[in-house]
């Protein structure tokens, strides 16, 4: 693997070498290596591009890495990955896509991920998107995540778009059963003339189900972000959605949270705040000896951490 690909792997999956546990590396649309374990199977789909990741019931403290790296300009792909997480399993899944585009043609990756989280299973899903490259070709990613959590299950989704993605539409829909819980933490940074749209829909269907959707984003330069978050409370449930955005330069952000209480015992909250960095925050850090630019950098880094 060359240094460009190694760099991408490090950015999207914190990997310096071949990871421990199960993994599948998708490299320019082909296979960059795979390992399965006694509890985690990875099977190539036969009807369309993508893989099935099957985690046996009761699997504990194991991880799956499925990074995608694209260094070929003009590559456009749609990949379907299905995750079957068995009852009582407790695992970490790290996905991510890094594009290095040094050409003039657009490169794009659309990962359609479907999670079937079994009864009382617990998963942490980490997803990172990153783009780079000296070319003029756009880096485009349109991930779609579909989540179904069975009774008592728990899923935490941590999704990060670090930088370099010119255009993205990220769609996530979830359906939550009795006593199950979903936590989504999104952190997003756009710059240049980038566009990013986030679209969450969560259906709280089961009694005592809950969801917490938190998005923090920074829009710089002339970039534009749209944030849509819908929580439907269809039973006795608790839902919270929060969008917090910092705008800088000539950037624009539009946040549209929506909560629908369809049951008398649904308890739903939404919060959305957009604004530039508060002047007093900059002043405080400047009184500690930071320049205005350094203060801005600290505030943005901390905010997205």
């Amino acid at each position, binding site marked *: 693997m060359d240094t460009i690909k190694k760099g991408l792997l490090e950015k999207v999956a914190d990997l310096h070498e071949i990871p421990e546990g199960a993994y599948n590396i998708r490299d320019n649309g082909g296979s960059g290596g795979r390992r399965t374990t006694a509890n985690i199977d990875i099977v190539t789909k036969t009807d369309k591009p993508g893989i099935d990741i099957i985690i046996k019931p009761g699997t504990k403290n194991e991880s799956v890495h499925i990074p995608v790296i694209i260094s070929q300009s003009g590559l456009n792909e749609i990949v379907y990955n299905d995750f079957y997480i068995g009852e009582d399993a407790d695992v970490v899944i790290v996905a991510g896509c890094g594009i290095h585009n040094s050409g003039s043609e657009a490169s794009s990756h659309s990962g359609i991920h479907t999670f079937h989280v079994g009864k009382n299973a617990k998963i942490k899903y980490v997803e990172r998107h990153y783009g780079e490259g000296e070319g003029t070709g756009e880096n485009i990613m349109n991930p779609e995540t579909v989540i179904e959590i069975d009774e008592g299950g728990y899923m935490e989704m941590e999704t990060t778009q670090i930088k370099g993605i010119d255009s993205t539409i990220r769609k996530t829909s979830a359906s939550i059963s009795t006593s199950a819980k979903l936590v989504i933490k999104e952190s997003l940074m756009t710059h240049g003339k980038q566009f990013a749209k986030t679209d969450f829909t969560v259906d709280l269907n089961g009694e005592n189900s809950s969801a917490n959707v938190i998005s*923090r984003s920074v829009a710089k330069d002339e970039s534009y972000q749209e944030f849509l978050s819908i929580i439907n409370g269809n039973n006795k449930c608790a839902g919270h959605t929060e969008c*917090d955005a910092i705008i800088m330069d000539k950037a624009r952000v539009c946040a549209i949270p929506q909560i629908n209480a369809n049951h008398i015992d649904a308890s739903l909250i939404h919060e959305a705040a957009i604004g530039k960095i*508060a002047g*007093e*925050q900059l*002043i*405080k*850090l*400047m*009184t*500690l*000896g*930071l*320049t*205005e630019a350094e203060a801005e950098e*600290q*505030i943005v*880094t*901390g*905010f*997205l*951490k």
Partner: protein
Amino acid sequence: MLELINVSFKVKTEDGEKEILKDINLKIEEKFVAITGPNGGGKSTLAKIIAGIYQPTAGQILFDGVDITNMSITERAKLGVSFAFQQPVRFKGLTVGDLITLASGKKISVSEACTFLSEVGLCARDYIDREVNASLSGGELKRIEIAMIMARQTKLSVFDEPEAGIDLWSFNNLIKAFEKMNEKINGSIIIISHQEKILNIADKIAVVANGRLVKYDTKDAVLPELLKNGGASFSCVKL
């Protein structure tokens, strides 16, 4: 040493101009100087002029003989001026540990950072990784603000009403912290305060009222008069 020469500060209003500070002449050589006076008298403005947050409309500021009048906040901070806000700022995402580290200007160990927190009466272990966000109370924020100034260890530390919002038990510890800082510091501490206990540990007291410096002398020369008259002679100084 800090010296203010004929410092004035005017702001534009709907009716024209308002003079917030008028011809302030103040030389601070002592280790501990308290500035007191009625609300709205110009104390906080004076502190902000020293820190560089406001630029004076007239006059000159010297710090250790260097003219800092036109220097930015950052330049003054780098020269050794620290400023604790009356109303500390919240930061989503930055932790108490981050701010203490930034304040110290270098990489410091967790135990070093904890020392500063302990000095302001916070159990460091509970706070070091906490975000400086709305989950912290006003009193907690004030103490963190003071710990940051302690971590800076600069030649000049200006505190704007450090006691405001702090409970009584903590207040007594705060006094001890200032006394300790006073012993250790190789420079000056300026505290804007209405509290007798703080004025009592000052070497000198400056009284600012109606934008003017109405009295600047040793504690023994100023404090009894302040207490006796309830400050009436200094335009109803609040104590």
